[in-house]
């Protein structure tokens, strides 16, 4: 019951956090920025609209938003929010969740290819490319976590005091894991410096260009799915950088959501102070995350031997 409630809160708050990034960016730009509730307004507006479908599209175009939202929502159900037990959990759920996100990606790409637009094809090709390296990074991290805990489930890594135990055994190298995870977050969620969600030129986009033709409730689903996905990755970083627990669950959860403000804030700051990489530089950036994660794994193993 409690985990259902937490999941519900998380899903409800995800758009709010995403608006926080906009606020930070506006601050750096010397602007006032949109209200914090902007994403709710947008979602409601979109849900009340009808849709325009391209004559080139098929049922896959409608499946795209549906599946990407579903996968993101299901992935969230396996996350131990604020260190409390997750709603679902089984041995190997990490692999399932990662592949589920892959399924979401497949359908997003399929929906983009469905429109016959050259620009969306371009975005789709990039969407197919960068996450390959991200996935390898995540699996390297999994190896590290598996060797430290002997478990293959998200709740075993991020529940309760377990993150603190990671710091005890792995020490400072865990910082590299956090950085690597942050790079993965930026890449998977199409943020600067990999992708600029606010740019105006379709040629330079990844995620935004893929959803150009979606409209109305379909587009709302895509947006919501993107918020969930961002929340999914941020939750892990939050648990890793603040591994302590206070005791009462309410306090823990409150602290967790406070730390999340910090993480979204860092994303916002990164977006404000960095420029988007040239497309051919992105793989090197993402590969850095792989190198860092692999490095941390190697070093840590040397210690626990």
């Amino acid at each position, binding site marked *: 019951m409690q985990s259902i409630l937490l999941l519900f809160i998380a899903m409800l708050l995800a758009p709010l956090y995403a608006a926080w990034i906009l606020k930070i960016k506006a601050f750096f730009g010397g602007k006032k920025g949109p209200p914090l509730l902007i994403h709710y307004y947008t979602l409601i507006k979109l849900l009340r609209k009808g849709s325009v479908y391209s004559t080139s599209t098929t049922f896959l175009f409608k499946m795209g938003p549906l599946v990407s939202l579903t996968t993101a929502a299901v992935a969230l159900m396996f996350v131990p929010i604020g260190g409390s037990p997750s709603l679902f959990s089984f041995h190997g759920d990490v692999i399932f969740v990662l592949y589920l996100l892959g399924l979401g990606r497949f359908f997003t790409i399929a929906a983009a290819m469905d429109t016959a637009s050259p620009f969306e094809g371009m975005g789709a090709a990039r969407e197919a490319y960068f996450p390959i390296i991200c996935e390898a990074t995540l699996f390297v991290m999994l190896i590290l976590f598996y060797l430290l805990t002997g478990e293959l489930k998200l709740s075993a890594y991020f529940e309760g005091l377990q993150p603190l135990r990671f710091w005890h055994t*792995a*020490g*400072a*190298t865990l910082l*590299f894991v956090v950085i690597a995870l942050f790079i993965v977050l930026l890449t998977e969620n199409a943020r600067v410096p990999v992708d600029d969600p606010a740019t105006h030129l379709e040629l330079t986009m990844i995620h935004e260009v893929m959803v150009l033709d979606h409209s109305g409730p379909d587009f709302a689903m895509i947006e919501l799915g993107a918020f969930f996905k961002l929340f999914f990755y941020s939750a892990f970083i939050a648990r890793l950088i603040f591994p302590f627990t206070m005791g009462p669950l309410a306090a823990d959860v409150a602290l967790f959501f406070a730390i999340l403000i910090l993480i979204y804030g860092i994303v916002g700051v990164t977006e404000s102070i960095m420029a988007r990489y040239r497309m051919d530089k992105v*793989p*090197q950036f993402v*590969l*850095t995350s792989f*190198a860092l994660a*692999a*490095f941390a794994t*190697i*070093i840590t193993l*040397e*210690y626990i*031997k």
Partner: protein
Amino acid sequence: MTNPVETLLVLVLLSVLSALGSSRLPSLIKVLSFQGLVVSIVPLFMGHEMNTGSIIFTLVTFLIRAFAIPLYIYVAIRRVAIRREANPIVGYHASLLLGLVLIVAAIAVSPKFNLPMPQGRPLMLPTAVTLVVAGMFLIMSRRNAIAMVLGYMMMENGIYLVGTGFSLRAQHIVEFGILLDVLAGVMIMAVILQHIKQAFDSLDTARLTTLKE
């Protein structure tokens, strides 16, 4: 993982990776400068007995390694105005992955050396081995002469680390001698480079093969 030496060594290993991944000479120099800085302060935390002499030696090493040599090279590339690209034979992605493989291999190989390394420092020798081999790799895989010199410096850092591991009294003197050699070498190199640049208008070592006759 709590003791400072190990943290420093992890930073050194990280600097190896970023050196292998960096494409521009200025950033490569910065990485090497950072590496020299970290490597040269390692002895301060080793828990050896330190007298005034060895502290001074360490500090001078520190200054030369972290500032003098990098600055000198930096000025040199400014003066000859050569291309800033490291010009790799093996690409940056491959170099980076190879760096990871190197670290794993170094960890696997080090115990077989049977060197009298201090207890409780499992990363000391692997780091040193990684530095030496990665330095060689940098020399082999970059066409740009300056990048090759930097690879040479990386090797020297590795040798210094091995020396740090032995708590011999004469260590600092020998080490200092080597360092001075390196410094002299770097200066000579800079002068020669300037002449080569004036004569041939290029510092691509691949073209130096024409000099073989």
